[in-house]
């Protein structure tokens, strides 16, 4: 049984192939088109699902889509009618997209891939719930989903048991914690669906002085449900997601590229604090209602690793699972998993242990590329490569590390990564200068050997998908200054030997040289671009940056190349 999951038409288009319950391939369309967060029908990703999955288009038994388009369209129409005539321009701009793409998926599937079989439409938040629970290692768990908006739901909770999911309650649009976060992200001058992580980082630089104002415009009930004051927002009225009332309350908005002022940091801090408080109220309520001590979190809201850590530290739940593509790209996975287990009633047998579900490239192909690009390179055995790269990192070199299968989800988890030395006090500046050109307040993340994580971080569980931000232990802060954020936390990825033996060995070798079982990991991309997918992408990024070395498979390319 081959189930193809698809998410597209809004942002983070992706496709996923599940065969007999096992995730075979999952990949975002942006990696192929090189257009970040692309929303277009994921034709490249679907092609890769077929070819990478070793099947033909005829072998696809059914397709699962990550939302119910007509239900979503009803919200779109009703919402715009409510706001008429102010929503007129937005309505006229958006309606053609609905008619041309969003409402006709079966026709698109037939036209694009010749598929005429069954198509299951899974509610957006149910897809998130499925992506969180059905691939988790838990037999039974509470489920909480949250993002900007699906069809009507913006947040849901329920529980999963075996192969069944039951949603108990939903919060509906326009009451959305996710939309509030995104609206204020744009107010602070960062792009929607992209800049939320930057705002999360900015939050650590400020004080939550605007918490009362936020509480005034978003009323939170005792169970965590919330009602927004629509006068402060404008989700359907045009270019801006916030109104003049919000600008009056917080002061003038920041334009992209403007200087970040203390006020902006404080607003970000208030937003983050408010989000964490609200989520904690909700998770405590979910704990009381479900009486379960494990929870699965899904939806873009739970890419907020600081809030995730607060949920874990709160202790309402003993265990927490968040799959790496918690945002809408993961909807493709969720829809496919839901169809496989909940609709077609196939048992759950496989938990998602790693995110390495994308394309990989052989050393033979890489060598051919290097030769054709006239790049000087040295070939290594696995062991020699690991020792050499570890030494480079220890020598404070910035290394592009391209190995094996590409990760699914927004994070690079050690196969499409840029690596650095966490012990160097100025490594952040070095990485920013040489490659990333990020805002100076944004931290870089550590990858730590799973077995050593607790020595450096206040972390009692594994964090294989970099979705937790625990505190760095006080006595270790001076050891790894390159990864300690201003609030004393770090966005940790724990690396297990079974999940990624080559990466594990590299960190182990780095530990052998420096005594520290940690390297810096940042995604292998230049600013504004998607993470690299192919060796060609990696070579292009390497050439346009000042990275010291590029490691493609078992080949090391120096800057002189």
């Amino acid at each position, binding site marked *: 049984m081959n189930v193809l999951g698809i998410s597209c038409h809004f942002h983070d288009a992706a496709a996923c192939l599940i065969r007999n319950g096992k995730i075979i391939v999952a990949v975002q369309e942006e990696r192929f088109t090189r257009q970040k967060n692309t929303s277009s029908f994921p*034709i490249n990703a679907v092609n890769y699902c077929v*070819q990478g999955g070793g099947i033909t288009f005829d072998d696809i038994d059914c397709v699962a889509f990550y939302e119910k388009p007509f239900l979503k369209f009803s919200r779109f129409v009703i919402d715009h009618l409510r706001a008429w005539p102010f929503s007129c321009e937005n309505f006229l701009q958006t309606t053609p997209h609905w008619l041309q793409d969003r409402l006709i998926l079966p026709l698109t599937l037939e036209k694009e891939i010749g598929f005429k079989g069954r198509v299951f439409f899974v509610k957006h938040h149910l897809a998130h719930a499925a992506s969180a629970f059905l691939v988790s290692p838990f037999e039974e768990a509470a489920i909480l989903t949250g993002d900007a908006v699906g069809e009507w739901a913006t947040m849901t909770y329920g529980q999963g048991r075996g192969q069944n999911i039951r949603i108990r309650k939903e919060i509906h649009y326009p009451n959305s914690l996710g939309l509030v976060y995104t609206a204020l992200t744009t107010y602070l001058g960062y792009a929607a669906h992209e800049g939320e992580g930057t705002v999360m980082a900015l939050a650590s630089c400020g004080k939550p002085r605007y918490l009362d104002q936020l509480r005034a415009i978003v009323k939170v009930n005792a169970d965590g449900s919330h009602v927004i004051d629509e006068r402060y927002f404008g989700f359907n009225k045009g270019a801006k997601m916030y109104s003049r009332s919000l600008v009056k309350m917080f002061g003038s908005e920041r334009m992209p590229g403007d200087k970040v002022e203390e006020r902006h940091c404080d607003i970000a801090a208030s937003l983050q604090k408010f989000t964490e408080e609200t989520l904690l109220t909700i998770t405590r309520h979910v704990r009381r209602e479900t009486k379960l001590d494990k929870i699965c979190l899904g939806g873009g809201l739970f890419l907020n690793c600081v809030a995730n850590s607060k949920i874990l530290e709160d202790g309402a739940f003993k265990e927490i699972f968040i799959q790496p593509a918690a945002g809408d790209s993961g909807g493709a996975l969720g829809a496919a998993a839901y169809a496989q287990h909940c609709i077609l009633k196939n048992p759950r047998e496989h938990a998602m242990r790693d995110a390495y579900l994308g394309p990989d490239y052989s050393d033979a192909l890489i060598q*051919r590329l290097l*030769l*054709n690009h006239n790049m000087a390179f040295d070939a290594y055995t696995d062991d020699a490569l690991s020792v050499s790269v570890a030494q480079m990192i220890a020598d404070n070199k910035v290394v592009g590390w391209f190995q094996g299968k590409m990760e699914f989800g927004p994070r690079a988890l050690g196969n499409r990564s840029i690596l650095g030395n966490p012990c160097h006090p100025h490594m952040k500046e070095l990485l920013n200068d040489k490659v990333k050109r990020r805002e100076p307040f944004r931290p870089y993340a550590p990858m730590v050997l799973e077995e050593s994580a607790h020595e450096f971080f206040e972390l009692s569980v594994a964090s294989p998908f970099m979705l937790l931000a625990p505190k760095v232990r006080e006595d270790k802060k001076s050891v790894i200054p390159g990864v300690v954020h201003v609030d004393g936390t770090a966005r940790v990825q724990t690396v297990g030997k079974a999940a990624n033996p080559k990466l594990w060995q590299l960190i182990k070798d780095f530990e052998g040289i420096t005594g520290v079982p940690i390297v810096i990991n940042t995604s292998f991309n230049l600013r504004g671009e998607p993470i690299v997918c192919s060796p060609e992408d990696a070579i292009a990024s390497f050439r346009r940056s000042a990275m010291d070395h590029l490691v493609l498979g078992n080949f090391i390319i120096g800057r002189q190349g």
Partner: protein
Amino acid sequence: MTIETRTICKRCVLPESRPDVWLDAEGVCNICRTYDQQKDGRSRTKLLESDFVKILSQHKSKGKYDCLVMCSGGKDSTAALYYMKKRYKLNPLAFTFDHGFETEGALENIRNAVEILGIDFLFFKSDFMKEMFLEIVKTDEKVALCHPCSIWYMGLTFEMAARYDIPLIVAGWTRGQVSQQPLASRCADKVHGSEFISMSGATQAFLDKYTRQNPKYKDFPKSMEEVVRLAGKRHKATVVSPHWFLPTDSGEYVELLQKELKWKFPPQSYPGASTNCSLNFLSVHNAMRHFGYTHYHVEMSKMIRESLLSRQEALKLLEINFGDEVLRDVMQKLSRAGGK
């Protein structure tokens, strides 16, 4: 056998051969430079397997056969045949043309493939072209023998497609040979750009003159464009190759063919790792003498630019792997046939 040594482009394997191919101060040819200039636009229009599936569904056959597969017994055309039957579950008709110089190895590959796959097979053997081949060789015309041959083979294929009412012709062309649509109009001479101008011009000039003088060949098409134009009047068939759409490396499908279809490389063929006819040795020899390169150099250069082949691999494959004795044998066979 002596062939003039020429300076080769540093990026691909084309030698300097003015006026069509020239190297700049950095030793890079004009074809590679043009490729660089157009690269951004090309990467956006990469062909996907789903595009191929679309073409297949647009060309549903009303008759017995879904497609006509041009099968030479080489790895690429045998793989195309395999894909049409196994991967796309179509009912293909295999078609092979033998001008009298196909090797026993190639023919055995075809027989094995159609037998194992259970495919109907049309085999057309004719001496019709031999006189023309002999004329080219005897008069030392600057014509690659493969060009008129491919023109005739393509014409025959269109005729067969018309006879069996087949809407789709499938070839085993690699992305180095042809890769753009519209398909049929781009399958040979003049379509590759400046690296083929002299070669195709010489072929057309020869055919213009020779077919006028020789009544036997009075209806022989002068170019591939003419073949396509004439075919279109009778029966419209689209020509396509699965290799343009599939990311599979030839090494992978050779392994598959060897395992599943008892496919074998012949003891000797040019270029390396190919299964070309014995007349090809003569064609290559003449093209090298007259132009300094062959259509294989053009194909492999294109594959290098697309990173489907390394320059080192291409240079190795393109090394002349036959001597005067082979050429003498082919000449003798040709003379015998021409003398009949």
